[in-house]
């Protein structure tokens, strides 16, 4: 046993102490570095195919290689980066701290989810590598991240392995989700009522509910795929009497909610950053909190908007289009409330806030262009073109990824105990902002002009747009490299961070050291005010400290 008052990084030493740890902070860090590694891999594939797309003719790599590149980019970014990014990496680190708890409800289960994540990731990468080196063995992984049948069932067993990997990864997120739900219900500090929870917790709570409810559908889909490929029962394959469109229903029944598994956590971080760096109560707290739950529920009934041109009945398309418009409202409500929070605040433009402003700008574009796609008549034209590619990059990358990086810069001092170079951090945010818009804004134009997605070769008319987009991708590379440099440099320079550099009011900043001690807090923190009550006098009390003063803790709603 280490000394409980020593910080969690130094409490125990050696590789083994990391691999068998049940400390949510260490597990969070291991998730974080795994995710960052996969982000690098996914990014490299993107740069490779953006380079191929510089010219209209397919000339740099073969069509098969190109198809593998975009598939790997999609699979890695969705399943190994965006889905685990905020919930598993930041959530694991921050959630128990914000709740005033010593750990998550089931620490060992938490470690198990990390291992399951690693197994799933290894399996996904293994399939990719085997499939690419020798396609005759299991077939190439060249189906796109959507694995549509019957193309995916013709190529060999690779798709089974990939779906199995996705399912194992899903298991990891189901376990994390359950763990978080129980932790939020059971381990809140005295005085931490539901409406005193930081909005980060609310959004993670909504995410966890979707994870637990939607991911099993992916499992069912996999079972059906296996039954078809191994036993020969016709389900999706028309040659066996199956229905290929059925697969799309199954896939999107999971994957549309999964879109919100990806974006809600981004919104979670965003609420924290906007409030802290404006030093102002979050405007419309309850509306923002409940909008997360509304999104979680409606997200289950809009999947058919991916299938407007699939021959699905017009009536069904009408209903799905209508419901899709409904889900726009709670997202809009969040944006309006964030802007209103900044009104009359005291706004500090530190690195995390710049990433939060990136989110606001980019996610707004992403959300609004969703209207073009949710509207039936325009979607017929834009479906499966670069317009869609631009739209979901603005939402997923402009949304979740920006706040993920913002969140890293926000909690980095807490995680490591060191401060980074503010100028480098800001420069990275600005360069990424520029690179992002250069890469993706032009893709809306391409899509409107009719450029289909997943094209290896294209008509020359689109070439100039592609050149711009590729240049943007390399600007993005520079931006992210600077961000990485700033973080690595902080570990080398070792400039000690203060306990609460951002003047935040949530427990991870007020009640524990930077970096936190092994069991998070010395004593049991009590909460006397809301998470964003920057005007209230700071109270840093624990059950024990109140006891010592002879004023035992009593809950008051004030």
């Amino acid at each position, binding site marked *: 046993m280490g000394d409980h008052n020593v910080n969690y990084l130094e409490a125990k030493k050696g590789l083994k102490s990391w691999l068998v740890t049940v400390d949510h902070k260490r597990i969070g860090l291991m998730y974080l570095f795994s995710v960052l590694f996969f982000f690098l891999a996914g990014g490299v594939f993107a740069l490779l195919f953006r380079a191929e797309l510089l010219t209209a003719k397919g000339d740099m790599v073969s069509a098969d290689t190109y198809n593998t590149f975009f598939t790997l980019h999609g699979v890695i970014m969705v399943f190994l980066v965006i889905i685990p990014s905020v919930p598993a990496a930041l959530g694991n680190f921050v959630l128990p701290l914000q709740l005033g708890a010593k750990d998550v409800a089931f620490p060992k289960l938490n470690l198990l989810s990390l291992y399951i994540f690693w197994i799933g990731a290894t399996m996904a990468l293994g399939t990719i590598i085997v499939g690419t080196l020798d396609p005759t063995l299991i077939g190439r992984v060249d189906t*796109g991240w959507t694995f549509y049948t019957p193309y995916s069932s013709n190529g060999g067993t690779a798709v089974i392995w990939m779906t199995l990997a996705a399912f194992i990864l899903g298991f990891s997120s189901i376990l994390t989700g359950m763990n978080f739900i129980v932790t939020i219900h059971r381990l809140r500090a005295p005085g931490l009522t539901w409406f005193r929870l930081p909005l980060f917790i609310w959004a993670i709570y909504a995410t966890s509910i979707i994870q637990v409810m939607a991911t099993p559908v992916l499992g069912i889909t996999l079972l059906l795929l296996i039954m078809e490929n191994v036993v020969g029962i016709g389900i999706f394959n*028309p040659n066996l009497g199956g229905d290929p469109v059925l697969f799309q229903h199954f896939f999107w029944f999971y994957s549309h909610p999964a879109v919100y598994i990806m974006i809600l956590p981004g919104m979670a971080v965003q609420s924290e950053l906007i409030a802290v760096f404006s030093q*102002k109560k979050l405007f419309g707290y309850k509306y923002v909190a409940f909008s997360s739950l509304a999104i979680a529920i409606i997200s289950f009934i809009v999947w058919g908007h991916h299938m407007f041109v699939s*021959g699905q009945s017009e009536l069904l398309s009408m209903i799905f289009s209508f419901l899709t418009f409904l889900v726009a409202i709670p997202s809009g*409500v969040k944006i309006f409330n964030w802007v209103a929070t900044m009104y009359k605040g*005291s706004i500090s433009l530190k690195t995390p806030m710049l990433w939060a402003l990136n989110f606001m700008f980019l996610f707004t574009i992403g959300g609004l262009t969703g*209207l073009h796609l949710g509207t*039936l008549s325009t979607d017929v034209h834009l479906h499966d073109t670069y317009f869609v590619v631009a739209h979901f990059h603005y939402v997923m990358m402009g949304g979740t990824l920006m706040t993920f990086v913002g969140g890293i810069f926000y909690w980095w001092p807490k995680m490591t105990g060191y401060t980074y170079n503010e100028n480098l951090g800001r420069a990275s945010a600005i360069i990424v902002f520029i690179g992002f818009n250069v890469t993706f804004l032009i893709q809306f134009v391409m899509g409107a002009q009719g450029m289909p997605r*997943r094209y290896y070769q294209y008509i020359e008319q689109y070439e100039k747009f592609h050149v711009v987009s590729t240049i943007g991708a390399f600007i993005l590379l520079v931006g992210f490299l600077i961000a990485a440099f700033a973080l690595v440099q902080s570990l080398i320079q070792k400039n000690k961070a203060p306990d609460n550099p951002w003047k935040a009011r949530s427990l991870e900043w007020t009640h524990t050291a930077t970096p936190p001690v092994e069991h998070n807090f010395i004593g049991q923190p009590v909460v006397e005010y809301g998470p964003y009550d920057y005007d209230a006098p700071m109270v840093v009390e624990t059950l024990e400290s109140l006891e010592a003063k002879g004023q035992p803790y009593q809950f008051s709603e004030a």
Partner: protein
Amino acid sequence: MDETQKFFDDMTKMKVQAANEWWTPDAVTQAAQTVDGVYNLITIVCVIFFVGIIVPMFYFTWKYHRKSEEQVAVSQEDHSTFLEILWSAGPMVLLFYLFFVGFRGFLDLRVEPEGAMEVGVRAYQWGWEFQYSEDFEGNPTKCTTKVNFNEPLYLPTQRPVKFIMTSSDVLHSFYLPSFRQKGDVIPGRYNTVWVEAPADKADDYTLFCTEYCGRSHSQMAATLRFVDPPEFNKWLKEKQKTSCGGVSLKRGKQIYDGVCKTCHSLDGSKGTGPTFKGLWAKEETLEDGSKVTVDETYVQESILKPNAKIVKGYPAAMPAQELDEDEIKSMFKFLQSVK
């Protein structure tokens, strides 16, 4: 495979007519113009909302910028029921309107007018085959006239054309940007798309595949040539001569160019499938090591049930072909001619 490469390279020269290359392509039909109207409307709504969100955001960042460490927020105002209702209900009304106009335009795109000329479309890995069974006036053709996408596919102006589409293998999608029309092409099912080009819009329009379908997905671009009705009829009559002409070497060559060329070469080089050079009467080694002579029976089986016997060293990647008896016999003639 040089000829194939040239075919692919030529594809990159195709055009999607666009007077304004920063917006949507030129709209050929009334329905397409309506779609553009909705597109423009939504874009205006987006710009208004975007400005309404981002301008205040930047203004607040500038106006309430923290100038000293001690500076605190001017106000801690944290809710307004009025605003919440305003910014939930306001957009809701607008969104319902967008939903409604979108749905109306969608019905226009989906429901074809009376008396459309029906054209069959068969998509395969990787190409398109159009099947004509009537001319402009609706007189039946001698036989189902098949035309492949390696040449322009003719269609008449001034009459609605309804494409009845199915796929031989995997999913494809039939996309005509200039008409704002799209429909997935699904094996084992029929999906439809309709268009009508007015007289003054006789021109070449590009067809794309927009559902990822494997290696040559991006090389399924085809030219749809809309011409005056008499010219269309004349072309169709010409096509019937080869298509309905029984067994001929020419017909075999035509099928090869249209369908088999992407996988089988004539010059001995190895593609997705074995070369056709010197194939006829050759002793072929199969996957399980057994040998078979390439004759009528074997070739017919290779075409109709390609996976029954797999050539050693090749994947089971050949899709089953839907050729009729005359077409298969024409193919024999063609294969015999490739020495």
